[in-house]
């Protein structure tokens, strides 16, 4: 092979390798869902979420997921939320999934919210029986951790396609947390609520946009 041909081959192979890396990085960056801004509310913001046992659409119809509602009442498949800094963020979660139970009952206690409490269907609680948890909403770096009560296994009219509606079986969980300085904080669910590897820590538990995301304090 001539020197020119060899140079061309090396340059070509390098270009292909660089292109593959670029595509991988671009795909990784684009994989994150679009952030949703929490609706303004007195002294802060209101974040309205729902959880559904199975999303019901592509790319993973059978994956468990969170969704978020914008100011106009439309539901979006995202787990990246923008909330104001140094403000009170009131969170309402419509919980449509049944209970899975906590792997570590430690997370049954409400932590890091105003008063270290939540309300479940209007009742104020400090903790939940660990087996009743369907998911948790936890922002570890802010110390926020709230277990979410599942609907009964035999509840009528259960939801299996997002977005779920008020007429379908659900529990309503509310809590408020205070934000500090701006920053990006990851949040996650601590219930092994998905499928596959070791009792349910695979798939949606490992994917931003489903059971994990970011709270962007801006």
């Amino acid at each position, binding site marked *: 092979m001539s020197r020119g041909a060899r140079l061309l081959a090396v340059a070509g192979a390098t270009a292909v390798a660089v292109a593959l890396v670029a595509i991988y990085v671009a795909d990784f960056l684009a994989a994150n869902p679009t952030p949703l801004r929490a609706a303004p509310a007195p002294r802060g913001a209101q974040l309205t979420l729902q959880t559904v046992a199975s999303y019901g659409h592509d790319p993973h119809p059978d994956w468990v997921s969170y969704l978020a509602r914008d100011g106009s009442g439309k539901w979006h498949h995202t787990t990246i939320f923008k909330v104001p800094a140094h403000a009170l963020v009131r969170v309402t979660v419509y919980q449509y999934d049944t209970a*899975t*139970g*906590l*792997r*570590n*009952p*430690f*997370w*049954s*206690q409400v*932590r890091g919210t105003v008063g270290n409490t939540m309300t479940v269907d209007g009742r104020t609680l*400090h*903790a939940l*029986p*660990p*087996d009743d948890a369907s998911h948790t909403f936890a922002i*570890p*770096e802010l*110390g926020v951790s709230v277990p979410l009560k599942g609907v009964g296994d035999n509840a009528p009219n259960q939801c299996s396609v997002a977005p779920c509606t008020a007429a379908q079986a659900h529990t309503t969980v509310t809590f408020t947390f205070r934000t500090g300085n701006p920053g990006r904080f*990851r949040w*996650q669910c*601590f*219930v*092994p*609520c998905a*499928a596959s*590897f*070791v*009792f*349910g*820590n695979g798939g949606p*538990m*490992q*994917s*931003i946009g489903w059971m*994990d995301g970011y709270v962007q304090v801006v």
Partner: protein
Amino acid sequence: MTSNLAPAAAPSGEPHIRRLIVIWVVLSAIGVALVVFALGPHMPPWTFSDEARDQRNINIMLAALATPVLLAVWMALVYSIVAFRQRGVAIVDGTPIHGGGRLEVAWIVVTTLIVVSLAVAGTAALFGTTKGAGGGQGPDPLAVPHGSLPPLQVQVIGQQWAWTFRYPAFGGVETTQIAIPAGRVIALHVTSLDVNHSFWAIRLGVKADAIPGSDNVAFVRPRRPGSFRIRCAELCGLWHGHMFTTGLVLTPAAFSSWIRRQVVANAAATRTLPPYSTHYFPEPLRRAG
């Protein structure tokens, strides 16, 4: 092997070996002094705990031993480039060397002595000073440190993706932060609830695997109050990179009030916890899935 090239004219009469030895001794003396006294105090994992200090001392010893070897190699290279450089246009081989039995015996004996004494020193340190080198000794530790008080048990629980800590001596309370008293031997019982994690607190000199179903015991005696960074050192999923936190070493009095506050603050969770156990996996079986 013979060369079909004309042997280079060896610079004759020059005392290369004696010169090399003199340079090597001088450089080694300077190098070892620099390693021990200038670099040594800054070597990780520093001196925050007994174990960290002993590991650092071993790092200093290894670096000090390696320095003369490294200098010998570099010096031989540089000296050869300068003294035995082929000048002029002809590129020819040097004179072939045959035999050299005394030299061979010498380097085999010296390297064997170095390696064997390092093995002896390392093994002695594992049992004597570093007490398992902070790596975790599994459920039945062989090297147990002795203190005036029995070791304080602290369970380290890895889970996707957080560390929690359990104190069996204080009602089995579980916390999201770890605090330990200065001056007392701590027995860290490291385990996991799901996949493998690794509890790495470099300033404590501890890096112990967190394995589900296993009780990995690592000892540490922090020497003074302060804080230490904890990271997960085993790729464990989506938020592996976020699995860090800060631990505290407190005075015994401050630790007493800290743990009392934790018992109160986590009372609701403690009531729901399973009894303290050295490991929790694979229970609870009926959950999840």
